[in-house]
């Protein structure tokens, strides 16, 4: 035996017990994992401070200059105005942005930060530690004491406006680019006693700088309000805890379409749902304040009309149809629990034994495809309804390990074989960002949480990237940007927000909260909502913006923010907002409302209004093309027309409907001359000719006509408002009720003119 063979036999014999491995595999025995859990905790903050302070002490000892890089005393910050400081700092940063020489710098934060937040900012561009030489507080005080600085980071209750640190020009330049940092300036020895962080608000208000940029996001509505009117409140100086009411589905829809599976359910599949994380709910009940058209308050003055004007009366035997039978179908789908349309004629139905997609047309319903599973949960819906991601369980005793991609375009349901990634664990949530095509599964197996990253294309093809992150602490999906996924890692009362690159697994901490905030993602996986916990007494709801990595504070505490399928718009308390470039901007865009009320808007034809005992009630969509083309308006309108004008209008609507609905004969207009007489009774000569031409009304021979360009109108939905009247002419607007949008009644507005002919009011043009 030579040494080569000796080592071969030695390593073969003792490295692996092949027979034991085979036997254990057949018995289903897994080896116990020896994994060190991710360590998080406030001690990390103290440790960083301790390291930093220690380094400070060493610096002070070593260079006998108290660690201060000497700069010309005439450059003392305290000797300059804030404006001068701003200009000087910009110039210095540019000069020194590639310098590795260590200098003392004063970092002014863009807004007040907690010690943990300040630490995260200051260490974001170093190896995790940075010497902190002074801290500046919101009350105008400061500390340069080593012990006090350590105590500040340990207690984590102070409100910090700035910090003096020692770093290189490279780090200083990177810090200056951080959205949480307003300014980074070189310091002198004198500045430790006399300088303060610049007055950020004053500089902004004086126009020396603007922190508000035009939003670059293409989804931003066309006419947002000026950024000078953001929702962002002043910082709460007492804000050391954060938590909000958990985002849940509204009462209007009792079926939460997308929830995160609870740990209890993962451990015991027979328990009922107890969602710990839910995506923003599917529907809204809101009252937008802004209207797109003037309200009726301008139109209440009663016109004065010539007393002899009346309205035509149809002879006996003619009953014009003034009402329109609303579209209403009630098909039965066995085991249906909830439903909504994802395309004009394609409906998604959740059932007790799975889910399916159906086509609906003129009341008939056909199943396209369906899946049998238990507890189907929707994790993502594209903004146009083209795609959905749904997870489920094979049976009630199994763990959640199935994931399907539903395409309304190809009308298919594709099994993504998630069980190959989930293996013996369970899906706790799924996030999909349509912009980057990044699909992230959050998996729990035994006592560990994992992320599994994939690419999902528009055809439902999935390809594996990596398992970039894992932890023994609970992981909550937040959002994604490019190849970066953002998650919350919770250990006890502390939650750290981490950014993880799915390609190489690099992670960095970008924020931390204590007091167990509730964190939820939106369907689009573009933002997360961080809300104070149920038992929190203070704190505000924040929206995380991954584009700027800002935690944008709102004015809200216990409210619920609804994103629907929108990438960047949400509704709260009847108000609509857009998240753009780290700011929250009010919006009154119908498009934004449509994305938030996606269950009403993904189809321009139908909407599901109720599901009861397996019967699905389907009505016309309020987001119809006709309504959107006519431009929806919101307001409270009151009729102010005369009785004669009203009767004339009713008659005109009746004629209009008889033609549009093809009900002339039914109405008693059995001959062409009767039809023409009816048209001419309620429409001026000009208008009557237009209608006769448009509808191809025959004036001789047998009754013959079509609907032309007319649209049926229900008189009960109309509010006739006269805007002006002089002599024998009146101009007004008829507001036709379209439906409920954002909790308010929406109308389409149509100009109407009345002319007096033959002693009667008549419409001067067809109703369009």
């Amino acid at each position: 035996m030579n040494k080569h063979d000796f080592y071969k036999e030695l390593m073969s014999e003792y490295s692996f017990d092949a027979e034991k491995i085979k036997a254990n595999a057949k018995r289903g025995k897994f080896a116990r994992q020896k994994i060190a859990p991710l360590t998080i905790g406030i001690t990390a903050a103290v440790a960083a401070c301790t390291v930093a302070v220690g380094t400070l002490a060493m610096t002070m000892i070593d260079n006998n200059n108290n660690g201060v890089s000497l700069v010309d005393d005439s450059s003392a910050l305290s000797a300059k105005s804030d404006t001068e400081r701003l200009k000087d700092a910009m110039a210095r940063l540019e000069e020194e942005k590639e310098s590795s020489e260590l200098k003392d710098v004063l970092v002014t934060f863009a807004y007040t930060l907690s010690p943990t937040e300040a630490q995260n900012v200051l260490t974001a561009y170093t190896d995790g530690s940075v010497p902190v030489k002074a801290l500046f507080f919101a009350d105008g005080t400061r500390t340069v004491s080593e012990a006090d600085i350590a105590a500040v980071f340990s207690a984590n209750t102070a409100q910090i406006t700035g910090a003096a640190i020692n770093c290189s020009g490279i780090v200083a330049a990177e810090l200056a680019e951080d959205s949480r940092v307003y300014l980074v300036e070189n310091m002198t020895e004198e500045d430790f006693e006399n300088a303060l962080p610049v007055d950020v608000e004053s500089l902004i208000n004086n126009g020396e700088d603007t922190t508000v940029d035009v939003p670059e996001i293409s989804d931003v509505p066309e006419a947002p309000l000026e950024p000078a009117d953001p929702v962002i409140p002043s910082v709460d100086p007492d804000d050391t805890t954060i938590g909000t009411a958990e985002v849940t589905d509204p009462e209007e829809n009792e079926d939460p379409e997308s929830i995160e599976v609870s740990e209890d359910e993962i451990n015991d599949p027979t328990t009922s749902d107890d969602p710990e994380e839910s995506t923003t709910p599917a529907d809204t009940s809101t009252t937008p304040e802004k209207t797109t058209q003037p309200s009726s308050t301008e139109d209440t003055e009663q016109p004065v009309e010539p007393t002899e004007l009346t309205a035509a009366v149809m002879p006996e035997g003619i009953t014009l149809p003034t009402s329109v039978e609303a579209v209403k179908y009630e098909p039965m789908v066995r085991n249906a629990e909830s439903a909504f349309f994802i395309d004009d004629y394609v409906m998604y139905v959740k059932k007790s034994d799975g889910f399916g997609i159906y086509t609906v047309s003129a009341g008939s319903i056909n199943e396209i495809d369906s899946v049998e599973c238990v507890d189907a949960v929707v994790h993502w819906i594209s903004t146009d309804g083209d795609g959905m991601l749904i997870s489920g369980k094979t049976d009630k005793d199994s763990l959640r390990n199935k994931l399907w991609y539903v395409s309304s375009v190809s009308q298919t349901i594709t099994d993504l074989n998630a069980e190959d990634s989930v293996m013996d664990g369970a899906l706790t949530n799924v996030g999909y960002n349509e912009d980057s095509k990044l699909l992230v599964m959050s998996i729990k197996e035994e006592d560990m949480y994992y992320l599994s990253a994939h690419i999902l294309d528009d055809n439902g093809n999935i390809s594996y990237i990596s398992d970039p992150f894992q932890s023994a602490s609970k992981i909550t999906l937040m959002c994604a940007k490019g190849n970066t996924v953002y998650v919350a890692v919770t250990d006890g009362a502390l939650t750290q927000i981490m950014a993880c690159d799915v390609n190489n697994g690099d992670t960095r901490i970008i924020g931390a909260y204590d007091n167990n905030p509730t964190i939820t993602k939106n369907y689009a996986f573009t933002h997360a909502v961080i809300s104070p916990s149920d038992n929190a007494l203070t704190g505000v709801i924040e929206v995380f913006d991954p584009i700027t990595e800002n935690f944008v504070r709102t004015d809200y505490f216990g409210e619920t923010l609804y994103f629907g399928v929108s990438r960047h718009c949400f509704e709260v308390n009847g108000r609509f907002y857009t998240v753009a470039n780290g700011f929250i901007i009010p919006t009154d865009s119908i498009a934004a409302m449509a994305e938030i009320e996606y269950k009403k808007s993904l189809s321009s034809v139908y909407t599901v209004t109720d599901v009861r005992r397996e019967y699905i009630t389907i009505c016309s969509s309020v987001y119809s093309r006709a309504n959107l083309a006519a431009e929806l308006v919101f307001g409270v309108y009151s009729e102010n027309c005369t009785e004669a004008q009203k009767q004339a209008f009713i008659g005109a609507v009746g004629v209009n409907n008889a033609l549009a609905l093809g009900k002339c004969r039914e109405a008693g207009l059995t001959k062409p001359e009767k039809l023409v007489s009816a048209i001419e009774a309620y429409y001026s000569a000009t208008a009557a000719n237009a209608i006769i031409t448009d509808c191809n009304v025959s004036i001789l021979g047998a009754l013959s006509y079509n609907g032309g360009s007319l649209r049926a109108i229900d008189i009960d939905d109309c509010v006739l408002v006269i805007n002006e009247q002089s002599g024998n002419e009146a101009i007004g607007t008829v507001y036709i009720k379209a439906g409920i949008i954002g909790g308010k009644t929406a109308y389409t507005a149509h100009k109407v003119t009345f002319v007096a002919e033959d002693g009667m009011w008549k419409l001067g043009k067809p109703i369009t």
Partner: protein
Amino acid sequence: MNSAVVNPDIERYFDTVYAETFDAVSRFVVSHAARFQDAEDIVQNVYTRFFKRISDKGYDDIDSAEAFLINIAKFECRSFFSGFMKQKEKAILLSDFSEEDSARIEAELSRDQKPLEDVMSDKILAKQIFDDIMSSDETVGKIFYLHFVCDMKLDEVADALGLKLSTVKTKLYRTIEKQKKKFGI
């Protein structure tokens, strides 16, 4: 999983695949596991998952059992250690062994030495020698396994472990020289 009701056909298939793929799977795991000490557990998990999978869903859809197992192994290697493991280690440029020394040691490895058979028979001593290899840094055990058991050339071992060839040689030869002095082999 109740092994008492295993389909004999499944078991036969598993046994065949196990015999055919064990070397490849163990080589992969040793190359990619963070620690050599975890390799055996990882290999066990790989085959346990595989057995469960074929028991639950059969194996008709598995074109290549080896590729399938390697995919599982990828997941297990990453799961078995906290965080994402960077495969590349810092390269340490060592120059303890000249070309001449390397040739000498390689020649020694090929020379028959009768006492080695006795050493191998002495289970206690053999285990001590094995443990001594394992007590070195993380990569030494991997280098020994990949080179001697998997018959990989040293440059192939270096590639697999993300090390420089000189580093691999130094770690291997230094351990062999050390053991020669320590155990007289």
